[in-house]
């Protein structure tokens, strides 16, 4: 408590003369500005200035009032105590980032502990994707919400779409990493099974003399693992999630490209699609009419 108090006093000693100086400077500015106004009027015969001097003076006065209020010992004390909490804010800010990092680190360490454990061949239930899941959870809880903050103002729609594209890209990157991880699992498992097989062959004294045999054996094991993996519902789910997230990202990206193109004198995909759709239906109608016409001509020729 004492330490905090002494910190506040030290801040005040530094802060008070500074605020007084700023107040004096700002209160002198209006006078300087009226001199400036004169010279500006001389420079521009029409009497127009880029900034309204009245508005500028009003802003400076407001700042002057504010800074003089802030140079009061009580306000300065409040501001100083605010500064004193800055380290706390910063610590909290870094804590959020660090907790995510530590979580990932913890999972990686856990995984390293499992390195010695054996993976079961031809089994892909409960796929171990913890490290990717941690990132995905962290992204969902800590980052995603910032991209979903409602946007305000004239360009809010475009900003929202832009953030949405970033979000979709991040989701796609995560699901793609997950998919690649799953796709690599048979590799990992096939080497383990190959190792077992070779051990077995050694025990039985049946080791192949031709080195190509080892390759052929490995490819066969790998193929078997892939076939088993591909039939699991986990794989199908991961594949579908990857595809869907890619398609979501593409749609969002196309939307912002369309937004950007709208300001240029060239047609967007949306414009062309509308045109193609119209053309498609017109062609169908023409074809149908041609058929009717042909039938009419036929029946007329046959006297019907």
């Amino acid at each position, binding site marked *: 408590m004492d330490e905090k108090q002494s910190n506040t006093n030290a801040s005040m000693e530094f802060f008070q003369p500074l605020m007084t100086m700023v107040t004096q400077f700002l209160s002198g500015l209006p006078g300087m500005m009226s001199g400036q106004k004169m010279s500006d009027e001389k420079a521009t015969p029409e009497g127009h200035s880029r900034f309204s001097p009245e508005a500028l003076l009003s802003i400076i006065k407001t700042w002057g009032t504010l800074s003089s209020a802030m140079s009061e010992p009580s306000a300065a004390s409040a501001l100083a105590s605010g500064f004193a909490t800055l380290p706390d804010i910063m610590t909290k800010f870094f804590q959020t980032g660090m907790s995510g990092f530590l979580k990932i680190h913890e999972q990686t360490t856990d995984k390293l502990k499992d390195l010695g454990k054996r993976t079961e061949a031809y089994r892909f239930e409960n796929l171990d994707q913890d490290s990717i899941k941690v990132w995905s959870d962290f992204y969902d809880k800590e980052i995603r919400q910032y991209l979903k903050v409602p946007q305000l103002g004239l360009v809010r729609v475009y900003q929202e779409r832009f953030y949405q594209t970033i979000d979709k890209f991040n989701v796609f990157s995560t699901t793609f990493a997950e998919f690649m991880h799953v*796709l690599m699992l*048979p590799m990992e498992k096939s080497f383990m099974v190959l190792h077992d097989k070779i051990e077995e062959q*050694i*025990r039985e*004294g049946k*080791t192949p*003399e*031709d*080195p190509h045999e080892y*390759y052929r054996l490995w*490819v066969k094991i*790998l*193929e078997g693992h*892939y*076939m088993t993996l*591909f*039939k699991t519902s986990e794989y*199908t*789910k991961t*594949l*579908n999630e990857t*595809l*869907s997230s*890619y*398609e*979501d990202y*593409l*749609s969002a990206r*196309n939307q912002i490209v369309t937004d950007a193109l709208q300001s240029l004198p060239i047609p967007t*995909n949306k414009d*062309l*699609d509308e045109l*193609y*759709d119209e*053309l*498609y239906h017109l062609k169908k109608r023409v*074809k149908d009419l041609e058929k009717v016409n042909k039938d009419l001509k036929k029946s007329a020729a046959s006297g019907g």
Partner: protein
Amino acid sequence: MEEKPKIPVDIILKHLAEDADRVQDRAQKASEVLLGPLETAIATTPYEVIYQQDRVKLKHYLPMREPSKEITTPLLVVYALINRETMLDLQPERSVVKNFLQAGIDLYMIDWGYPSRKDKFLTIDDHVNGYMDDIVDHISHRCKVDKVNLMGICMGGTFCVIYSALHPEKVRNLVTTVSPTNFDTDQGLLHIWMKNVDVDLMINAFGNMPGDIMNFGFLLLNPARLMIDKYVGFMENMDNKVFVENFIRMEKWIFDSPDVPGETFRQFVKDCYQKNLLIQSKLVVGDKRVDLKKITMPLLNIYGQYDHLVPPGAADKLTGAVGSTDKEDLCLDTGHIGIYVSSKTQREFTPKIVQWLTDRDTSKKEMKVKKQPVPKTPKKAAKVSWRNRTKNTTRSKEITNA
């Protein structure tokens, strides 16, 4: 007595040393092969484009001999919208096209072209009742025939089935090859994966279904073989000029993947893969229901025992669902592409189709019928409804008046 080592390290090392020599020698020769002139052109059999509508072209292959007196009905081959029809003419000595021409068949083939964004609204109806129907009419008019023989490949076969059900009066004989018609099967990974795909999201995002994405999906069906072993095989044989040429031809074909029009893909996935409507005669194309019982022309249904894209379970239900009495299943000992390009099946695939068509050529039959006295009471048609799912089925020749 010296104990035999458990791992023959010495022999393995000896083999490796020999291999190293071979690899060096191979690399030397491979550089000569790869840097030298290579014959890698595909689809070299001469043809002319006799009809075009939008991006869709009709190829007519120039005859290689005098027209067959056995098969006078023109044959229209309908390829899938996925990949290209060039697969049927991949290399001169393994060309289904050439084999048909050598048999004297008047051969036509649809080239679906490369759909662009403009084509994203085209549906199955536009392909079957639009392009295909116009092409059949064009051939009929050109050849002065009222019917054509129809042969479909993969998705093209599915289109042919739909077409034959909607326009039976225009099809003399129907041949379906590796054509999916029953989608409710767990035999193929594609059938499992497609059931859960959000096709609406997909088409809304892509417009048309990108060929490259589909190709990536096909590679994922067997990454060990298609992404690793295949190229290891190439490395091991890259000093062999003929092997390299054929390998590159295949690579050219595999990765030449047009996009599939979005609406067609959407309907194919939803109505076929997810709802399995076709085999139940519930599929609606345009505003017409595709009733398979209306397929009354002779049907030959060929599929591959080891097909990972259209497994037997996806193809062999068709003959049981159609209205034809003359129908046959033929299961070949091969995979989806091998059926057209493997040297082994080349010896049985095309000859079988040629013979089957020959047996059913109406004009020949009509000539025979004219020579015979017309019976007072019409003889009942021999019922030849059977299915043979054993490998390399051969059909007995006892069918007449089918």
